């Protein structure tokens, strides 16, 4: 394996591990309830409190719950899914016919993107406004750009290989 391949494989497996741990924490935090149930409860708590008690007003925290659950699950699923794609790209390396330097650069972009993206998504819970959203969007764009580069190398150079001596 080349150094870029090793970097992709290692990053993919460690990010998968991080994704699994985030999933564990999220599951424990919500006592193993599933997203549709959490969303139903949060929406009801935010929208229907006055129905149950005419003096009450919907609380911002109830409104916020569905937002938080969505972000945590998004981070958990995306970090693992993108790590799986990273693993595949590492396996496809011999078929990607672009110079080693560019492969290295695309590898770094891919790894950085898959760190920025979930971090940005989780940061949206704590940081209001554009900074967190921008971080997530930049991360997603880096992932797409890196994958586009690898795809180009794959489509360009995926002729049948010469027989191994």
């Amino acid at each position: 394996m080349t150094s870029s391949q090793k970097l992709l494989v290692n990053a993919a497996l460690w990010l998968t591990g991080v994704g699994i741990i985030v999933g564990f924490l999220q599951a424990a935090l919500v006592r193993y309830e599933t997203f549709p149930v959490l969303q139903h409860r949060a929406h009801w708590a935010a929208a229907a409190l006055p129905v149950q008690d005419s003096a009450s007003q919907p609380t911002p925290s109830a409104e916020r719950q569905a937002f938080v659950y969505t972000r945590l699950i998004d981070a958990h699923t995306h970090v693992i899914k993108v790590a799986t794609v990273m693993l595949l790209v590492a396996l496809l390396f011999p078929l990607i016919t672009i110079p080693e330097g560019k492969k290295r650069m695309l590898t770094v972009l891919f790894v950085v993107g898959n760190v920025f993206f979930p971090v940005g998504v989780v940061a949206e819970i704590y940081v209001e406004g554009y900074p967190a959203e921008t971080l997530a969007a930049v991360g997603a764009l880096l992932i797409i750009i890196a994958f586009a580069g690898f795809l180009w190398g794959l489509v360009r150079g995926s002729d049948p290989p010469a027989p191994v001596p």
Partner: protein
Amino acid sequence: MTGSGTKNALGRQLSAARILIFGGVSLILAGMLLGEIFAIFVSHVATAQVRREWLANMIPAIERQDRLALSSGYNRIEDLSARRGRIMDTHSHIIAFGFLALGLALLQPANKYPEHARRWLALCIIAGGVMQSLFIFVSYWLVPGSREWALSASAVGGALILAGVLGNSLGLRGAHSHRDFAHETSRRLASPSSRILVRTGAVLIFVGMWFGFYYAWIFVTDHEPHQLALLKSATHSAMAGDSSAARDAILNYRGLLSRTAIVTAAHSHVIEMGIMAILLGFVQDFVFLSNPWKRRWAIVFSIGAAIMPVCTYCASLYGLLFAGFADAFGLMSVIALFAMLSGLIRNGGVLEGGCPS
């Protein structure tokens, strides 16, 4: 007929790689079948039931300020949501574990640990995947005492997977540059069926990424804020005695939730089908079918994989007819996957019987 022989790590009987390949494909197949059953028999029915519950019970209960009726309607919707959530969780997790197993199977030749250690790590991944998914699935149908036990067992399954991933990661660290790894990969992907699957898969992943990027913007700016606004509008209209406005708002609310779920499913499915296509491209060498048949099944899988997510997305715009098409094309991919699995089993039988491959 093809077969790589027993020289490399992937071909050894009961090797870590073989456990991961058989386990991985079986997990993926189980996940896809569950997804099909969920889509056809559970999802559409549950969506209709929840909508009916809102219109027939919840809205009138809010109008009458009938807390008892409100509470029972709320609980019925929660129960439907719980069933849906458990099945969806099982479907998505079991397939993700299958992908992980197949990816790790292909990396086994570069793992520096001895075979017996790699075999234990492979068993951790497969057994953990089965435990986590199975116990999450059955937890919905269990009584509260047993449910906690099942959820703990699913957590143990998750921990086994984590151990398997981290163990493999350590085994791959500092692995020597395997000279044959690149040649072996190129050789493994040399068949026409592999190339069809790899190219289709890579393009599907790319399309899925762009679609996800586009939909994230729509979701954050439009769909997510409107969900709650519509539900609030429905409850306030019901409290004010305006049944018609409440019903319209609740239909729009349920419609928006369905649309969000369907578009998200289209985004995740196009990428998952792409991942699966590439992984299947790698294992074509172990599918004991003739080359023309492997190519046919690769084409069938690719057509199903490409059209199913498109039909899923169209279902969010044009309704149930396209959901039916999505189910049909998903089934097409399942059948192709099943054919490839049968080829893998035939390969395993031949190897274990000692015949040359």
